[in-house]
């Protein structure tokens, strides 16, 4: 492959002009998800924690950030949640996404300055920074409707933020996989390591306790725990393939999501934020097209009593011709005459 085509492929990957649907729909879901996830989270109390705990992150140290007072934190979290809500609905989107990013960086980073760094929200911060620089409010927003803006033409503006969030997520999994190989090697899989990790989780060592005791059952079966470890490692190391291959994406993204859910169920750590970021992997334009097709198909069939699926529902009627509720009829094949 020549250098010219290599650069062209790289450019296409990052900046291939695309419609704003994927980015903007993801924006709506991402900020909505954040709002739900952090609705009950109270950051105020970090303002009252003793300075003896203060062990600042490099970023906080470099920026000279300190814990503010309880009242100030209260104001900040209210403004942040408002910014999240505005970003989700797309009102004053550019400003609200920037505010959400700046305040989110402070609020989500603050708890990690007290002696322990968790990783469940780091990706959210990177995603917020990416969106703050993006044009994610060009469609699917109150702004677009308010200003009467037409649907913007395809542009690379709507591709690179999604790709960057993908890349960041791939780095997370790749990092986790490589760290395991670096620090543990093959023994991370081929040893009682996973069984010990699963058993320890029952001893209140994580930020939350496991939801089930299935981890103990798995730990009792060495082949199962080793298979689990191998699967986790394969998913983590292989996740990079999701960046380039549609097929790999279809397998690895759900697999990684299942892995995070599995970690919560069996070991305790919570990765809700990571799961929210998965909205950027969904091809919303294809989903909408599919839904549109389905709806169009259903409409067509409602007016076509001879349709092969037998959806003989008259327009406007809440009941099918045979008197059964429409939902029921929609899922039923017409009996052979």
């Amino acid at each position, binding site marked *: 492959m020549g250098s*010219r085509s290599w650069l062209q492929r790289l450019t296409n990957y990052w900046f291939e002009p695309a419609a704003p649907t994927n980015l903007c729909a993801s924006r709506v879901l991402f900020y909505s998800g954040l709002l739900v996830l952090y609705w009950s989270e109270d950051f105020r109390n*970090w303002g009252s924690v003793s300075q003896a705990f203060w062990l600042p992150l490099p*970023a906080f140290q470099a920026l000279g950030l300190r814990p503010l007072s309880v009242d100030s934190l209260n104001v900040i979290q209210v403004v942040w949640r408002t910014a999240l809500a505005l970003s989700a609905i797309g009102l004053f989107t550019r400003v609200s996404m920037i505010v959400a990013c700046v305040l989110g960086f402070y609020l989500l980073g603050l708890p990690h300055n007290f002696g322990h760094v968790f990783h469940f929200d780091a990706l959210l911060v990177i995603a917020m920074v990416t969106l703050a620089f993006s044009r994610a409010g060009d469609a699917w927003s109150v702004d677009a409707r308010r200003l009467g803006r037409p649907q913007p033409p395809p542009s*690379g503006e709507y591709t690179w933020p999604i790709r960057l969030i993908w*890349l960041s997520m791939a780095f*997370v999994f790749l990092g*986790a996989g490589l760290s395991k190989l670096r620090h543990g090697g093959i023994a991370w899989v081929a040893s009682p390591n996973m069984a010990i990790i699963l058993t320890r989780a*029952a001893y209140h060592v994580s930020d939350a306790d496991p939801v089930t005791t299935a981890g103990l059952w798995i730990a009792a079966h060495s082949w199962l725990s080793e298979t689990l470890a191998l699967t986790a490692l394969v998913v983590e190391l292989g996740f990079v393939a999701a960046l380039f291959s549609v097929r790999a994406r279809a397998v690895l993204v759900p697999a990684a999501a299942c892995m995070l859910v599995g970690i919560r169920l069996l070991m305790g750590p919570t990765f809700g934020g990571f799961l929210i970021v998965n909205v950027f992997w969904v091809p919303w334009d294809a989903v909408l097209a599919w839904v549109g097709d389905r709806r169009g198909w259903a409409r067509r069939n409602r007016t076509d009593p001879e349709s092969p699926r037998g959806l003989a529902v008259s327009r406007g009627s809440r009941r099918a011709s045979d008197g059964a509720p429409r939902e029921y009829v929609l899922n039923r094949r017409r009996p052979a005459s």
Partner: protein
Amino acid sequence: MKPDATIAIDTPASASHRRPDVSAVISTFNRCESLCRTLDSLLAQEVPDGLDYEIIVVDNNASDLTRSVVERYRALAPTRVRYVFERRQGVSYGRNCGIHASRAPIVAFTDDDIKVGPRWIETIKTALDAHPEAAAVGGKILPEWPSAVRPAWLTRQHWGPLSILDYGDQPFYTSSSDPRCLLTANLAVRREVFDRIGPFSPAFPRCQDHELQIRLWQASERVLYVPDLVVRTHIDDERLTKQYHRDWHARHGRYAALMRLQEIIDSSGKLIAPPDTIIRLYGTPGFVYREFIAEALTWFTTLVRFDRSHPAHRHQLQYLANYIRRAATAEPRSIRQWVTEPSAFVAAHLRRRANAVAMSPRRLMLSVALVFATAFGSLYDLAADREHWPFSPYAMFSYVERQPTLKVLRLFGVTGDASMAEFPLLDGRFIQPFDQCRLATALAGTYYNPARRPLITPMLRDVLERYEQLRRAGLHDGPPLQAVRLYELEWTLDPHAANLSSPDRRHQLAEVQRTEEIARR
């Protein structure tokens, strides 16, 4: 073509001699020994009756015995051999002089170190008669190796500098869609073609055959490769050195830059009209720089792998470097232009890329910077195995647990009632805004670090104070606490976690009692 004052042409010995069918032109300069070989082979041609040819030796201002050698051959074949003198140095001048002196409708070119085959003239005539659509014909140039052993690196891909040419045994046309160059050591052109496209360019002391053929292809002419048209070139030892090859590629790069060869041959190898939109830096398109960098990387890779193909990459590098250098010096530039041109080049590229992806150049730059910053942050933490939130190597759970044991620090509350009962502060409501893991890790990080250990008491006091505040505010229903104690607990893991409340070892590390001040708060 008008005669030039610097040209002196001998007329044939017999002016009444009829017009030949083929004029063989040899431009020579100080190579009278090898010229003899060439003339011998040309005079020994087996030609059918009715086919006549002449040999025109162009003395390109030689200072050796060229003239007397030619005179000797003229004495042998006075009607066939002609001597022409061209004062202006350069093979293009020499060949143009030969074209001017030629009388035949076909002008065949060869070099003064070539031995042509016995039916060379006949093959040329037959091929051009059989293919009136061909403007020229060319053929193989096969090597006559010296007796010395050939160097191992001299593979087939190094034949270019040796003027060896062998495109196989199937005839084909070279044209704008297949612009493979045939060399003037074995090339015959219809004389009328020169009237249409002009003679050899004197601006090209080297590569003039390539330049001529590019003009032919651009004029939609075709050149026929005839596998039976064979000449042999003597390879002398000097041409087997790497230095010779490096010099050849450097020269080739310079003349290729004059032809803009990299621009007029596209990636699929076709001759194209160079687009006006090419963005240049110092006269060279950006992709040539990319090719140069890619070639340098490949060369380096082959070098460290001890790959035997590395001289080829080194030569290509030499070619590209001289291409770039020649293109840069083709036009005079002020110092200011030398300084400002790179930024203009980058800006133009950026504008083009931005246009292609429907973005503004500023936004494109911003997004690229963000991508690079994010990738760099992630990769740095990954490589250095260090944490710079929000980047991280994500090393949690990555160390292999070998022993089914667990050692943790845990905070216990001591109730203020008479029982003085202890209970672990695990419930998030008791230790807000911490959770069990974050608090235990923070306490462990402080306790096990001698420099920070004095902070453990204020930390425990802070936990106790906030527990009481939260309790009094009704945010949890825990009992009033008299003290908090920090324990180091150690378990042997039970498969059912049945020993959760009875660790193997329990060692108190610190304690903070409730004071009046805490009670008041």
